[in-house]
């Protein structure tokens, strides 16, 4: 099997990753949330899918600014029409 993966820090997801509706309907498993309300990760899957044909370097180019620039993350999220939970 060939796949691309993003490993995200659990604390980062819970505390910093903005909640939103997931474009692909894949929710974080309950076990990942330790009793907190369900959150979804809308951008990660979309970025993975778009970048998968261009290699891991392209994925990094897509993700790295999102990790370091929350403003840009929000702009992308708005432009893609994600709704708040």
């Amino acid at each position, binding site marked *: 099997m060939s796949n691309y993966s993003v490993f*995200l820090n659990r604390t980062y997801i819970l505390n910093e990753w903005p909640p939103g509706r997931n474009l692909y309907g*894949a929710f974080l498993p309950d076990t*990942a949330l330790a009793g907190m309300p369900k959150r979804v990760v809308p951008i990660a899957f979309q970025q993975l899918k778009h970048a998968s044909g261009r290699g891991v370097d392209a994925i990094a180019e897509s993700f790295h600014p999102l990790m370091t620039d929350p403003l840009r993350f929000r702009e992308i999220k708005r432009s893609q029409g994600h709704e708040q939970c």
Partner: protein
Amino acid sequence: MRKGALTFIQLDTALPPDKVQSLSSCDSKAEDVGIELERDAPWNTPFQLTRRCLQTGKLILDRFQAHLQYRASMTEKAIARANLNVIEMQFCVSGTNEAALFGGNTQMRGPQDMPMIDLECSFMTADKGVMA
């Protein structure tokens, strides 16, 4: 890790001699995430696996490709050893595998599937491999 640092890791088991390819991939996976690999074939036969990772302080980006069948498992023991605090999101490009996640339901995964794995939970996956 230094803030803003980007670490690059590349693994290609085709580079070492055939007799240690399986062992080198096993060591790599175990060191990274505590996943234990098993094969039906002897360990000293060729096993081609490639990985390319980019790591920042908050995420790891990984391209993983196995060319032969193998099984991987994350046991309670491995979870304790790895002490991970991460969620994995996958995008499957080619090939299929059968996975049992979160102690129960077995699912077939294939191209275009996007499973999520909590690496603090035990799981097993039987990968059929893919030809490049």
